[in-house]
């Protein structure tokens, strides 16, 4: 399984729409096997396009509705509104703890009351 995370200074990029580097984690049996960075600077492909091409799952920070809809329609499983150190986020995801408050952006932590939480549940169907 390959998981993509937009990375900025070892942290999850705050906004996917303007992120420049995508880290692809190769994981198996709940463990990280490898990780590799891809930059969209000077590339013909945008970061979301690289994510669709190289990953099965995307864990990212904020992202605009139009990009999220496009990614989901292209078959990518999207987990937005994550924050914190990239490797830690992946480890938490592999343990099923991605929705922990500590790693979810402010304003997106309260289940049904927040639009982003509702969309996150829909996108992971």
């Amino acid at each position: 399984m390959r998981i993509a995370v937009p990375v900025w200074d070892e942290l999850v990029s705050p906004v996917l729409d303007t992120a420049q580097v995508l880290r692809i984690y190769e994981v198996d049996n709940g463990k990280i096997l490898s990780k590799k960075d891809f930059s969209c600077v000077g590339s013909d492909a945008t970061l979301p396009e690289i994510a669709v091409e190289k990953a099965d799952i995307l864990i990212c920070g904020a992202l605009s509705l139009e990009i999220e809809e496009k990614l989901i329609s292209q078959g990518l499983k999207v987990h937005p509104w994550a924050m914190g150190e990239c490797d830690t986020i992946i480890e938490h995801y592999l343990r099923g703890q991605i929705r922990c408050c500590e790693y979810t952006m402010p304003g997106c932590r309260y289940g049904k009351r927040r639009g982003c939480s509702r969309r996150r549940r829909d996108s992971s169907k």
Partner: protein
Amino acid sequence: MPMKNDKDIILDSISDGVFTVDKNWRITSFNKAAETITGIKNTDAVGSQCSYVFRASICECGCALRHTMETGKPVTNKAIYIVRADGVKVPVSISTALLRDRDGEIIGGVETFRDLSLEEELKRELNKQYSFSDIISRNHRMHELFALIPTIAGSLSTVLVEGASGTGKELVCRAIHNHSPRKNGPFIAVNCGALPDTLLESELFGYKAGAFTDARTDKKGRFALAEGGTILLDEIGDISPALQVRLLRLLQERTYEALGSEKTVKADVRILAATNKNLETLVNEGTFRQDLYYRINVMKLSLPSLNERKEDIPLLIEHFLHHFNKLTGKQIETVSGAAMAALMNHDYPGNIRELENAIEHAFVLCGGATILPAHLPNHYKVHLDSLIGPGAETLENIEIAAINKALKQNAFNRLAAARDLGIHKTTLHRKIKRYGIKLPSKDGRSSQNQ
């Protein structure tokens, strides 16, 4: 609930969003307006890293607050967008400043931001008035055309669209088709100048198997493909006399035969023709049939060159910025004053297509958020140097030179000059006064009134 101190009460009374950060980029205060604009509660925001709360387009590359903290220089009214928790991009204008303690030591930064959603909405509404189908213009001649297109589209008459290369002839023809009762039918465009005569004939009318060597199977022509819709014969001035005769027959009788076929086919096709040549001159020179000219010239639309609608340049630039941002995934927001002056003062023999190419060229070279003169093709920089002289590239000098040039070109008619510059006449009057630009006692208005 803890009592609010004076500072919080003051911040909450401000209609702009305000937040402060410490030196580790942790939010230390977050006012009521900031809560409203971002949708994030003060209690959630305070203590969090600012980039995860504010989620701005510039957080990663070009954070204004970081710039201020590093250089000590404030940033004012920078237009960016933030991503709200529901995924909506909110356009905001931000300003930043340093925060110091009583001893003058830097303890953090402050950022104020204003929601520009309403302004953007109004701007979009205004832009709607300047566009028709995919054509953008605030030029009065183009607006006369916009008003005419729905009426023309409703009829079945042949239309001739004249205009120099790159003025948008095909866009106008597409607009006519899209507003016609045939809009659900096909729109087929044929560039008559791009194909040799024999190939063009088979392309337009189709052929039967065995009509000529290599014609092994039947092939439908463009007229057959356009059945029930519209066909655009682009560069019609380039077709041969022999083909002109065949087209004339089709226009008169609405029938044609495919090459190698004896069967006459009825054509249910609306014909639009476009040319960058003056067909009347070609008729006088004897290279274009007069009877065909009268057949296609039932309705004639003439498109002005970009030079005749210079007030559209800023609108078109904005449109191309939006278009290429979408295409390239870049975030270029604007064009600098100097680059705009260079673009405004170019002559555009290639019209809108040339302007589009210049912006595309700039997109390749521009790595930031603003297009500068250095990003434009070289011949635009020559115009800039002749306009302001090398080394004198201040916004004020550029503006004075551009105003002087527009005034001279329009015989000091201020209304026409303002139109060329893409500004309101009152703005031009104010700038003339501010810069002390001298006007002759007898100007364009007086000569027009005589």
